[in-house]
């Protein structure tokens, strides 16, 4: 019994939130890694691209909600998502046309593109704050829990409850579908293959007749879709606030780098590594240990390695360790020197 309780507590506070957060980070990191692989720069505007796509989804959700439309147990945002993706694609393609393309033609150094993306970040951040304001916005509706902690307790007779939020399940399912689609696209379709070829060796790809502008366009479309999905999932699961999305940049970068930047598989692995490190290091283990240890050895403190405010520190430290010992990341990414 004690052991089961410990497992349930662990699942409730560590595994489930970690998997949901990891999926969100993985989707974000996939976007960053694709931009890095194809356009060869770290896109500082990615967090704000996520915020922009999510903002469109939120506005459409509100509009749908005001007409009385709903999906029953599912959040209305899922209906608004495709249109949100479309809006984000338009913005990103426009940005590429107006801003990035010039530097591509100039063959500017990557670091110039990074600085340019800082400017884009400012503008996108400004647009989002201008339209929806800097405050927290709620747009989640539908059923809140698949199973609530109380139901779980009465069902199993255990002392510990296990709550699974609907948004957590949706996050994981959507992430699996999206990742499967992406890998199918990259590995099986012509466009996907040309993207990989372009990422591996630009000159060779150009020689074999791949149209770089088309590759770049497809990349941006995928990146915008991933960003909007990641942002919407994060917003449904936690909350939407423009500043939070800007702050997500650090764990997302960390995920991409830890996995091996430029490597899509690495981005997913990195997302989960970062998410689980953040959750386990900032979680108070007292409860789980209390179930597992004999009463005399039960910990008196919270057994929390670090306060939750240091979650950025966790992603950063892991990032540094990986950079120091394995500069190309866990999965072989592009060179870091």
């Amino acid at each position, binding site marked *: 019994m004690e052991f089961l309780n410990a497992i349930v507590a662990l699942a409730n506070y560590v595994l489930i939130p970690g998997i949901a957060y990891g999926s969100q980070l993985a989707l974000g990191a996939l976007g960053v890694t694709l931009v*890095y692989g194809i356009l060869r720069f770290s896109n500082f505007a990615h967090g704000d691209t996520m915020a922009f796509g999510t903002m469109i989804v939120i506005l459409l959700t509100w509009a749908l909600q005001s007409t009385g439309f709903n999906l029953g147990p599912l959040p209305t945002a899922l209906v608004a998502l495709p249109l949100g993706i479309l809006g984000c694609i338009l913005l990103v393609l426009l940005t590429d046309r107006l801003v990035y393309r010039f530097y591509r033609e100039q063959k500017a150094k*990557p670091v110039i593109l990074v600085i*340019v993306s800082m400017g884009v*970040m400012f503008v996108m951040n400004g647009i989002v704050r201008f339209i929806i304001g800097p405050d927290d916005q709620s747009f989640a509706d539908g059923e809140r829990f698949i199973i609530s902690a109380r139901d779980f307790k009465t069902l199993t007779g255990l002392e510990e409850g296990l709550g699974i939020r609907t948004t957590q399940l949706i996050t994981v399912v959507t992430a699996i579908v999206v990742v499967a689609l992406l890998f199918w696209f990259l590995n099986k379709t012509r466009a996907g293959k040309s993207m990989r070829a372009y990422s591996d060796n630009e000159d060779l790809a150009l020689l074999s007749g791949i149209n770089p502008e088309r590759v770049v366009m497809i990349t941006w479309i995928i990146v915008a879709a991933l960003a909007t999905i990641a942002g919407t999932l994060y917003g449904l699961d936690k909350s939407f606030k423009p500043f939070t999305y800007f702050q997500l940049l650090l764990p997302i970068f960390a995920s991409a780098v830890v996995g091996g930047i430029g490597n899509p598989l690495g981005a997913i692995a990195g997302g989960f590594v970062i998410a689980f490190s953040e959750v386990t290091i900032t979680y108070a283990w007292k409860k789980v240990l209390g179930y597992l240890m004999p009463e005399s050895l039960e910990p008196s403190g919270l057994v929390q390695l670090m306060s939750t405010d240091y979650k950025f520190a966790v992603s950063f430290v892991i990032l540094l360790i990986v950079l120091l010992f394995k*500069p190309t990341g866990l999965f072989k990414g592009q060179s870091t020197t």
Partner: protein
Amino acid sequence: MSDTLRNTLLFALVFGLIIVSGFFQGWNNAMFILNMGLISAIMSLGVNLQWGFAGLFNVGVMGFVALGGLAAVLIGMPATPGAFGAGGWGVIGALVLGVATILAAVLAYRGMSPGRARSLAIMAILIFGFFVFRGLLDPSVEAIEAVNPAATGYLGGLNPGTDETYRDNGWIMLIAWPVGGLFAAGAAWLIGKAALGLRSDYLAIATLGIAEIIIAMLKNEDWLTRGVKNVVGIPRPVPYELDLQNSAAFVDRAASLGFDPVEGSTIFVKILYALLFAAVLLIIFWLSHRALHSPWGRMLRAIRDNEVAAEAMGKDVTKRHLQVFILGSAVCGIAGAMMTTLDSQLTPGTYQPLRFTFLIWVMVIVGGSGNNLGAILGGFLIWFLWVQVEPIGLFLMDIITAGMAEDSPLKAHLIESAAQMRLMTMGLIMILVLRFSPRGLIPEK
């Protein structure tokens, strides 16, 4: 038009703008813009040292500025009576232990041959060290934070005065400024050691991370900084307005110049600040000007322009990068300490990357990277715009919405959102300058 004339005109234009704002918005406000402009100019000199001279991409400016602010507290505030006795030695012991743990891990890493034994040994050292560190730190921290938590609850600083008299030692802030530089230099050394050998994007991500960690520490390590409870009443190296207003000599002098004593005293204090800041700015400008035109500066630029060639000539690229990274960060730290002195409070919650990192970058880019004068001009100009975009945005929105009905929700939303125009404007300026005038207003020679 000669360069000198052009530059003089540009500077005259910026100071003209500040003076015009003085006529319209009051001199107090204009002096505020000038003072923060001086500090911004110093920060952008620091970033210019890194980016303009050496091509190092540092997006952790905020962290170094905040460390300067920490120095202002640790030097300027009086020690909290009893706090050090309660847990000071415990905290110091814990920190020493923490450093010793890391050193032991590094020694083990260097001393043992690679393999599973080494990994396990390092893990064991780190985990054991961490728990001993926390075991010693936590009770001491609790003891310190328990000392009069409403008013202090932190160790305080090195000011020799007591709670009543520490404000008389305002001169001590002049020491806090270089100490802020030292703090930032220390952090820069750590981060530089770890990340400078990597591609420039990675230095950016690493600095972005360290800035967030420094802010998280400032917000949460209450024993050191009072956290989000903020430290207020940091002493100042200039007289207080109230003292001036109570001094008969000052009131007479103000009256003879036609000033109201209240307004006169605030402006007088700000002028004194401006003089101090200008002195620091001139010293740092002179030093970086000399550095740029020394063999060292030429070597840095050679490395920046062609790293491979410079390395082939026998230049130690990583070492030079580390040097200039530390120097530039130190300059940001000095500016951070000055800013906290001007505010006379440390409010960790207000440090935001958009304001203290990316805005400084806009200053450097717009002013002209690689040119010290350009960085200074950018600092003043962009700071002026940052302050003025909000009223201008509001004014624009008032005009745009003039035709709408009074109760229109769109009108209310537009006017309310005018404050958010700042970020967009700064981003647009940055993108446009990078596109059409990538060398900035005063290009590198």
